[in-house]
């Protein structure tokens, strides 16, 4: 329990024990609770008098007070803004390079120095955000939608379709991501981000699908789904209203963490030379070309690598905060 409800209550023995258990373990003190509750706004009236809130507004209420969320959201907001308008903070052109300045360190107007081609590292780090955010967000959306829908339906209906889908996910799981990338992406000549995103969705959906399937099966067995059915809810209503909100939290968490790993994977693939190709500006490409000069010019590697690390971390922390906020039992 994150915060004690009311000081009076925690001194009451029965209720103090109850509040250490998982959500709503108030059965221990039920007898007292029954009588106490007769007075409006009794011991459990934490929400009494306030306006009733929905799950999402409750989650938002929690998130606004969570420093982890605030920091990661600000970082992500900043990333999104500069990936849409990079010229806001970088006046140069990432492709405007001067070989004479190759590998030079920090100097006025060029805080991060120059890379092996004599391009401004600061400008390239700023412009690289666009690629990373695009790849991360698009790949995650694709994976979450495809995997979530397929896995969710398989979990809900079970039977033959579930069997077929599960075997297909097994096949995809057997493909090593980097090796698959080397094979599949080496034949692609396009220099846009879309083949890379497509590849990530292709290999990434089984992971989400399996998690969605599992959590739908768990949620489906809950008594309240049976109860909803007994009170006349239709299949689609059960799926959308009773199962999805209770099954979506693991998917959100894994997807947000996966978003970070997709950004890292893009860098990996670009590093290996099969991901994005110049003239696209990407942290992965820059890390790749800088890695051979790590001893004489570490700044060429550290700035894009640092940006990558902060971005990945921000998304993972965001995923964590969102999960905590979406689970009313943790409240």
């Amino acid at each position: 329990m994150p915060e004690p409800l009311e000081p009076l209550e925690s001194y009451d023995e029965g209720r103090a024990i109850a509040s250490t258990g998982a959500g709503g373990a108030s059965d221990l003190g039920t007898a007292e609770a029954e009588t106490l509750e007769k007075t409006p706004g009794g011991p459990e009236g934490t929400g009494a008098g306030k306006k009733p809130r929905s799950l999402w507004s409750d989650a938002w209420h929690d998130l606004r007070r969570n420093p982890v969320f605030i920091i990661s959201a600000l970082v992500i907001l900043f990333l999104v803004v500069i990936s849409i308008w990079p010229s806001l903070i970088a006046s140069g052109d990432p492709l405007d390079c001067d070989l004479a300045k190759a590998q030079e360190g920090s100097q006025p107007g060029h805080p991060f120095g120059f890379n092996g081609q004599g391009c401004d590292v600061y400008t390239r780090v700023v412009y690289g955000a666009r690629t990373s955010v695009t790849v991360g967000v698009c790949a995650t959306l694709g994976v979450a939608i495809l995997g979530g829908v397929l896995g969710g339906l398989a979990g809900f209906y079970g039977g033959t379709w579930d069997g077929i889908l599960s075997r297909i996910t097994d096949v995809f799981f057997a493909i090593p991501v980097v090796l698959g990338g080397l094979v599949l992406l080496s034949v692609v000549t396009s220099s846009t981000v879309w083949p890379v995103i497509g590849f990530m969705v292709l290999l990434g959906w089984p992971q989400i699908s399996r998690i969605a399937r599992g959590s739908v099966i768990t949620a489906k067995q809950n008594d309240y789904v049976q109860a909803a059915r007994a009170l006349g809810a239709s299949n689609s209503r059960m799926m959308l209203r009773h199962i999805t909100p209770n099954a979506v939290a693991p998917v959100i968490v894994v997807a947000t963490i996966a978003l970070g790993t997709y950004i890292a994977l893009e860098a990996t693939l670009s590093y290996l030379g099969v991901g994005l190709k110049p003239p696209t500006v990407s942290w992965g490409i820059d890390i790749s070309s800088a890695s051979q000069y790590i001893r004489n010019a570490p700044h060429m590697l550290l700035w894009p690598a640092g940006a990558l690390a902060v971005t990945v971390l921000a998304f993972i922390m965001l995923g964590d905060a969102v999960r905590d906020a979406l689970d009313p039992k943790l409240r």
Partner: protein
Amino acid sequence: MLLEVRDLHVEFHTREGVAKAVNGVDYSVDAGETLAVLGESGSGKSVTAQAVMGILDIPPGRISGGEILFQGQDLLKLKEEERRKVRGAKMAMIFQDALSSLNPVISVGDQLGEMFRVHRGMSRKDSRAKAVELMDRVRIPAAKERVGQYPHQFSGGMRQRIMIAMALALEPELIIADEPTTALDVTVQAQVMELLAELQRELNMGLILITHDLGVVADVADKIAVMYAGKIVEQAPVHEIYKAPAHPYTRGLLDSIPRLDQKGQELYAIKGLPPNLLAIPPGCSFNPRCPLARDRCRTDVPPLYDVTESPVPRASACHFWKECLHG
């Protein structure tokens, strides 16, 4: 007659074979009447109720025979879509564990209101007002303030009241309560049962009360059906069954209730275990545990004998019911 179950058979197909969970159950409930269905775990009492509600998991379950007549209409012949409209509106169910039967991420007001939105197409605002009304009706204090709270913010008794409110929302004609008080404290049990009985009287509903608690039954039921291994072994008005059971299994159940005048003595327990539903013994399914069992019990399946001695009909599935009733 409001509900008539006739010769209902339900089986489950499992890896080990076919489990015969319900083997020819007949019972009926009238408006305003309370039928208590009594039996151990695995006696088929809940499965019968699920079949009536139409919420059996099919597969592995299968209704292999019989009819379920609700207001004269065989529910088993209805299409799923038509069946769904009956559920909730005309018959509703109250489950044992109210905490797990309420959706943890939806506020109780929304869950109560959902009944009106699904079946009556009401707006969100109107359905919320209805939810407050319902919560008042089941005597939840400060309903207006608490309507937006989540199930875990309520105590066990209050949650069961919410479940009852949900079941009663559309004023159904039949309520099936599957062990509604088992998960509650004894003090709260009585309050909840009282509330249920009162609302039943008010709305003149039929009530099927599934329980293994003979104490709960005595106060509220009109008649009792005792189930064993998927069959009804005794059916009788509630007071007669307490006075003189006509089946050795019922006798065993009554004798297993601790009594004050037995202080210091060993409590009676029916010997043996309930039968494996994959291999129900031939003859009378209770014969391996029965103190009265004879050769005939191991070969002949006893029919439900009419053992009426007073104006109200009663029945027992024991070849030697006379012995049991009078001995």
